[in-house]
């Protein structure tokens, strides 16, 4: 994983332009569904806005309070068991869409966060605390507990695997 600036730069705008072009083509082929999709987008955007506010605050505090040395200590190569635990717990408690968290992870990566812990954080997000009652309702308590246990264990394994595959960039 490259130690890059969080840079959508032109890439981000290009991505948006490609998506908008897709909308344009889709509108020509199927105006009704495309309008429906845009209405859906506006509804989701309204739901995502508070999460974006939270992301902005987290980015600000990460910039303000987290010096690279501190990140290295708690989430870097030498963080040990505490680092794994911190990324699993943070992943489980993180809210909102995953792409909103990429920026926070990229920021922490620049400050020295281990690649493995980023992958672990992203995987442990699969345990959705607020949705657990619903999962229990649909699939049962035993199923939910066993699945969550495996998700936590494998979030660490995914981190280890990623770090083995991308060792030279750490």
């Amino acid at each position: 994983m490259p130690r890059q600036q969080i840079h959508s730069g032109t890439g981000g705008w290009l991505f948006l332009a490609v998506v908008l072009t897709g909308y344009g083509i889709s509108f020509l082929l199927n105006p009704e569904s495309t309008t429906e999709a845009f209405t859906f987008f506006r509804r989701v955007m309204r739901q995502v806005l508070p999460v974006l506010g939270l992301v902005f605050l987290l980015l600000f505090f990460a910039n303000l309070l987290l010096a690279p040395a501190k990140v290295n200590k708690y989430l870097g190569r030498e963080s040990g068991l505490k680092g794994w635990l911190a990324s699993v717990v943070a992943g489980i408690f993180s809210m909102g869409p995953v792409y909103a968290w990429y920026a926070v992870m990229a920021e922490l990566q620049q400050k020295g966060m281990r690649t493995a812990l980023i992958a672990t954080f992203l995987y442990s997000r699969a345990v959705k605390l607020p949705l657990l009652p619903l999962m229990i309702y649909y699939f049962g308590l035993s199923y939910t507990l066993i699945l969550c246990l495996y998700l936590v264990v494998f979030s660490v394994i995914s981190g280890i695997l990623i770090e083995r595959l991308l060792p030279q960039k750490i």
Partner: protein
Amino acid sequence: MQTENHLKQCLLKTIRTFIDILPIIIGMLLATSLVITLFPEEISTGLFGKGDIPDAMLGATIGSIAAGHPLASYLLGGELLSGGVSLIAVTALLVTWVTVGIVQLPAEALMLGTRFAVYRNIISFGIAIIIALLTVYTLQLLGAA
């Protein structure tokens, strides 16, 4: 004065970062909305029933392509289960729904690096199949399935 400058610098850096990620997030939301609207929600249960591993792979593939709130995966999973699809396939779908993101891949690659994004998604796909098998086998072992 120094603290004030530090605060100002941090705020400016955060705003710059935020402006950078904004087109990605808006693009992602637009793409997700289009995918959800254009592609049919109901998946033919006839595609399943070809054995544990093929079913798990199919479930994992559907979950990887699908985009939307995890809640939707529970609803779909519940429907599939009642339609006779195996718990292994449904579990693989539930897990990849939240761990693999084909639609999110461009955004992940832009912010965390292409190699990281590709490897992470491939690993997550494989792990989802293992988790699906382990979960159901563990349930059977405990007599809870």
